[in-house]
């Protein structure tokens, strides 16, 4: 396959950036999308040009490090698939492909296609955990968990923190990411004691980090490579409403 790539090049945070066109020939349909970019970069290096910086690590769709806007779709045209797992057989000979970084206020560009997603870590640090210091745990079987709850918790826990939801959202909202963790922990008995302080802490951190609000556009769940459902945001809203309509420090309310 022969392809025309139009790639966002930006030398650093201060640079304005621009789209640059490259031709890549002899692409195998069995290559992954990132392997196709590897081929381009090898060529650029030998030609004395700067290779295109992009984030990637595991290349098996689980670390969440890669993230590219491909023809305007977060992670590209194949649903339920990260950019690293996208293969060139999804494209046709002669295609022109636009490749851009995630664009959101909370994810500033570092270089080319690399963005800073540190804001996600801040949301987790603000409550996305169960306080259980090492050594304090009771015997694992002392608290049974209904299989349906465990399975549903798992579905939300499958989030890889890639940021596609934010990139796809017209508001640049990180609500699907936040809601996935809130939902996982609120479905489990272990998550109950901190359920309402957690949701307030995480939503506050989300807003402070510069993410936009959720207006139920639903783009996030469509591009999510792990299929985190939009209903998680409904659960978050319910918990948030409960949490803010009562005094969190009043026992038993």
């Amino acid at each position, binding site marked *: 396959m022969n392809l025309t790539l139009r790639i966002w090049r930006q030398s650093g945070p201060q640079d304005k950036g621009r789209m640059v066109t490259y031709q890549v020939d002899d692409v195998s349909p069995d290559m992954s999308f990132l*392997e196709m970019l590897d081929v381009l970069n090898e060529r650029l290096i030998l030609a004395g040009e700067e290779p295109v910086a992009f984030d990637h690590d595991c*290349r098996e769709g689980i670390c969440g490090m890669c993230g590219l806007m491909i023809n305007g779709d977060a992670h590209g045209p194949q649903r339920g698939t990260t950019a690293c797992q996208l293969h060139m057989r999804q494209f046709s000979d002669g295609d022109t492909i636009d490749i851009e970084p995630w664009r959101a206020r909370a994810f500033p560009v*570092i270089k080319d296609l690399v963005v800073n997603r540190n804001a996600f*870590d801040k949301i987790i640090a*603000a409550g996305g*955990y169960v306080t259980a210091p090492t050594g304090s745990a009771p015997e*694992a079987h002392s608290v049974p968990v209904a*299989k349906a709850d*465990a399975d549903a918790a798992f579905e939300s826990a499958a989030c890889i923190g890639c940021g596609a939801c934010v990139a796809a959202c017209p508001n640049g909202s990180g609500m699907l990411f936040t809601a996935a963790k809130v939902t996982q922990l609120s479905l489990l008995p272990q998550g109950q004691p901190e359920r309402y302080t957690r949701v307030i802490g995480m939503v506050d951190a989300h807003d402070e980090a510069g993410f936009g609000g959720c207006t139920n556009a639903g783009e996030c769940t469509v591009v999510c490579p792990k299929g985190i459902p939009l209903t998680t945001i409904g659960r978050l809203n319910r918990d948030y409403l409960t949490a803010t309509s009562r005094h969190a420090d009043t026992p038993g309310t």
Partner: protein
Amino acid sequence: MDLFTEGDPIADTRAPDGPIETRWERRRFEAKLVNPANRRKMTVIVVGTGLAGGSAAATLAEQGYRVRSYCYQDSPRRAHSIAAQGGINAAKNYRNDGDSVHRLFYDTVKGGDFRSRESNVHRLAEVSVNIIDQCVAQGVPFAREYGGLLDTRSFGGAQVQRTFYARGQTGQQLLLGAYQALERQIGLGNVEMNARHEMLELIVVDGKARGIVVRDMVTGEITTEFADAVVLASGGYGNVFYLSTNAKGCNVTATWRAHRKGAYFANPCYTQIHPTCIPVSGDHQSKLTLMSESLRNDGRVWVPKAKDDDRDPRDIGEDERDYYLERIYPSFGNLVPRDIASRAAKNVCDEGRGVGPTKLGVYLDFADAIDRLGRKAIEAKYGNLFEMYERITGEDPYEVPMRIYPAVHYTMGGLWVDYDLQSTIPGLFVIGEANFSDHGANRLGASALMQGLADGYFVLPNTVANYLAAGPFEKVDATHPAAVEARRDVEDRIQRLLAIDGDRTVDSFHRELGQIMWEHCGMERSEAGLRKAIDEIRALRDQFWQRVRVPGNGEGLNQSLEKAGRVADFFELAELMCIDALHREESCGGHFRAEHQTPEGEAQRDDDRFAYVAAWEFTATGEPSVLHKEDLNFEYVHPTQRSYK
């Protein structure tokens, strides 16, 4: 010139004596403690945020130490532990199927082909049960039965069901548990997190590890960081083979730099080749993808009986198929340990019975399981793995058998540590895959997660206190001569790499190095091959330092520069791996020497000559390393030839 010299044996591993069941308890009792008020005055650097590093950093911070954590990824949540699929072993015996701490201990020592330390392995089996409790308390969504209790499954090398799992994403869920505990401590201000930072040198002051030199991968700034103790949790070195199941960024630099500063490197030749990976599809291949070993619970491995049988697998009749693992190993069948399954796949392919376009593949067939359990049940167990397979290969494994082939997956070797997980440099501790300690010559499935979390949550936080009880140590800062020198070394190296401006890319060298290693230091090794490999590695390393082209400069994000530094270290490691493999004139676990096999083609150990840990001491670049032997004594599990027949 001799390839190595031999030095004094290692006399003391600091393991307590007495009955094996009591050793860990004794060590914890005898270890000195640090008063909570004094912990705040002490800093520990932790490099790496995988299962071992993440859990250690969180736990140390919970205990009250100041922790500084470093990772090369953009977030601690992305460390490669996240990709572990199958599960985590623990001796809970919830199945009432005869499991016990002693059986897990026994299976692990045997699975490691009697090349691990009994004391360490017993401790690992003991704390395995605490790990499950800890992770459940954190909200890790393990698979459960309808009654609400935890589900378990079988894994290779065991006849009990002791593997806990979270669909095919166990590593992800365990890592996120540790990550969330770590983020909590970051939020509380107890951990200073430095993502996108790479450790490039160790700082040793008066014989003690006191700090590291790091490069901020975004700004390019190089700084010296100091602490009372340094913990390396930087993972394994499988990427020396270029193609492996490791993440692209996984590298040996942190441990190799420590090795050059005096930490012994143990058993570097022990490499695990995982039997079930998606075969290579072409020259563009940048990494290999694992298909969880758990698939062997329900999938049956076979090749055609005839050579060069190119028919569609569905047209090949039952009587024309060779279910070779079931045939050769009737009692363990498809669940033999990884080293054995991998070599068996290589043997049938060498016979010309491999399948797929490259003929380097065997079938993993789910047709029987789908008939027996129904497609839905298979989907529930392995759905995500089947989808991943289809995305990569374009084939639907519900319809056509998967094609699999062995690939480099895990490295049992690593920095030598004593019972306290301390290296030969005082104050330098090494945990998780980065150390060598628990798996001997072969790791059993679902034991990497167990070891990473055992080290990080339960072992290191106890043993490091014993060291820190003598602290806080004299303050060191960036002006100390050792720090100035370490920093200058890093800067010089970077300048040297940038100045070469040759005509080959870093990746092209890495790929070629990987081919040499796979060919001669992979699934089967021989004296002639290893000697050839050593010559080739040296020649290629010289070429690298003359011809590599690293574009750009050191100021700012430069991914080519990052790779160049890592590949330079892989070159040095590769040579030591081959020397280690050459000197070990026996076959054991993942180390298979063609000259040493039984008439049936199984690994033949030589316990009289090689029942020891090979710990290598660095001398100088280009000079022979010094071999120190740590004898292995087996009081509880008597070495036998491993049989899974």
